[in-house]
């Protein structure tokens, strides 16, 4: 190619999927993805690929593990070693993967129902042990894949297909749960905060130990529709209005209300260091 021709092309860049910076980490032949228009999962995946790229983690050292549900399908799009496991068991599968093959940088990417309803027990125990992995929870406040039933993060009073009279259960406050259980890094952002999500993911991936990033996402087909929140873009706008950044604040005060005017606390709640499960184990087992 002559310099002249190249310059000509540079003037008129043609953006194709093949040129997308995330391509390196994605199975192009699997795209387009299955997610609904307006869903935040695509943004979360992009942030993660950008974080991998920024950190320069070798692709062959990355293991992505998902459970079941909309977010659970994410593993299928990563061109890394990727594991789409059973409902709720992504974290224990990832625990085995990490302990068996410590060089792997293990990311669990799943949803609120998968990680905190059926898989809740595994979350708190992996955090307690401080197994070295990054858990990314895309929270859309409901079970999207199965048709919009209420779940462990559905705000009190919100409507879902199995809470037609309003949800009368108390939701989990995920950053508070993660911090209480022993996570060494805890952050929450919304899909409006694309760059901050990426930064949080970079920090979480870089830390040794159990890191947790919650990403609040629109679900215009499920939760949004049932609660008259409009299109995905409207939910994003709502996040923009409601989100208040409070780094270092008490995660106990980060509960999410159904009230569309109520503030949503986002930011980095926890960023501490403590030895990982394997580090402590190896210390005890030295010379055995």
């Amino acid at each position, binding site marked *: 190619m002559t310099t002249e021709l190249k310059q000509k092309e540079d003037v008129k860049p043609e953006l194709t999927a093949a040129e997308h910076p995330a391509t390196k980490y994605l199975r192009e032949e699997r795209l387009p993805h299955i997610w609904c228009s307006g869903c935040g999962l695509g943004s979360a995946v992009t942030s993660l690929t950008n974080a991998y790229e920024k950190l320069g983690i070798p692709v062959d050292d990355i293991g992505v593990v998902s459970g079941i549900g909309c977010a659970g399908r994410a593993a299928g799009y990563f061109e890394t070693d990727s594991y789409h496991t059973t409902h709720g068991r992504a974290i224990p599968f990832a625990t085995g993967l990490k*302990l068996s093959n410590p060089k792997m940088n293990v990311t669990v990417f799943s949803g609120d129902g998968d990680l905190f309803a059926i898989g809740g027990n595994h979350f708190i125990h992996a955090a307690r042990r401080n197994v070295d992995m990054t858990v990314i929870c895309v929270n859309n406040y409901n079970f999207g894949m199965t048709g919009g039933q209420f779940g462990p993060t559905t705000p009190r009073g919100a409507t879902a297909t199995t809470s037609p009279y309003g949800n009368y259960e108390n939701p989990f406050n995920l950053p508070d749960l993660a911090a209480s259980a022993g996570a060494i890094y805890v952050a929450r952002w919304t899909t409006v905060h694309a760059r901050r999500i990426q930064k949080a993911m970079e920090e979480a991936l870089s830390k040794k130990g159990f890191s947790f990033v919650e990403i609040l996402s629109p679900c215009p087909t499920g939760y949004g529709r049932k609660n008259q929140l409009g299109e995905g873009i409207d939910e994003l706008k709502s996040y923009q209005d409601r989100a208040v950044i409070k780094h270092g604040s008490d995660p106990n005060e980060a509960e999410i209300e159904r009230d569309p005017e109520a503030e949503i606390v986002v930011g980095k709640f926890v960023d501490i260091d403590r030895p990982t499960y394997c580090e402590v184990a190896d210390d005890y087992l030295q010379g055995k």
Partner: protein
Amino acid sequence: MSDRAILTGKHFMNGDEACAEGALAAGCRFFAGYPITPQSEIAERMSKRMPEVGGRFIQMEDELSSIAAVLGGSWGGSRSMTATSGPGFSLMMENIGLGMMTETPCVIANIQRGSPSTGLPTAVGQGDMMQAQWGSHGDYGVIAYAPTSPQEMFDFTVKAFNKAEQYMMPVFVMADEKIGHMRERVEIDESKVDIYPRRKPEVDPDEFKPYKPDEDLVPHMASAGEGYRVHVTGLTHNEQGYPQLDVKTQQEKVGRLIDKVEKNKDDIVEIEKIGVEDAEVLIVSYGMAFRTAMGAYKRAREKGIKVGIVRLVTVWPFPEDEIKELSKQVKGIVVPEINLGQMVREVERASAGNAEVKLVPHPGGGLHEPEQILESLEALL
């Protein structure tokens, strides 16, 4: 204890301990489990021995996570196992299905106890035999061994690991409380321990298809971090490992999960035949019940009864061709089991009316008296 993985020598140990030693000898370097009677000695032995041989032991929060961690451990590149008993076996069923669907080599030892539910936690049972074949939803082939002594707990655990790698699937060691807690001489000889190596990819990553089978219907496995960037899913998937949700793919995939066991039965099925040449009646038995059956066999022979025994080394896949042939030779078959009738159904099916088949049941919690089996034999003559 020792930094040697294979403890060559003569030992006095119980079946659970022998199971753990068999696993280590077979190259197991990842164990995830949850305490449950009567398997706890396996986990206890592993917690002590695994660090000695450079492996990893983890006590998980339940059996759901134990089996999930074992599958992750196997994909991480380690030979992996868990051990449990009835209630834990029930909890593991969903991820046993994931292991079958994703063709993940691993070993699950089930030290059976009186059941259902909490049942008789400290006492013998053989009530999970059908669950081993049919416990997880859907169709898949199964390989399950039934040891009858601590020595066989060692030997069959080695076999289980090798078959798990050879056929890329979870394999069961279906023992019971009596075998697990029985203490006997166990001889270990490193020179006799053969290891079936992991079926690594034989082509470059660009060409590799994780679910493209060889002629023996079994694919190859790329562990995490080896550069093959595999996708592994419990969804119905094509040879590339990608979800493909249609009937044709379902037929190919699930059909192969059955065929890779069925069409390799000559390699997998193992039975022991004792005195069948002139037999007019037959005992078919396995596990702890087989030891009692041997007592009945000896007494029957002393009384001049022409009896033979088929002992199932592999209970699954069931040796139906062998039982069918023998059923043509004998007047009747008795099947002593420490349950209220499980493998007897397979014996009935295989003998297809050629011989009368009689269950000798015993509930969990105890063993048959040899006389019970003897009386059943005499009744058939």
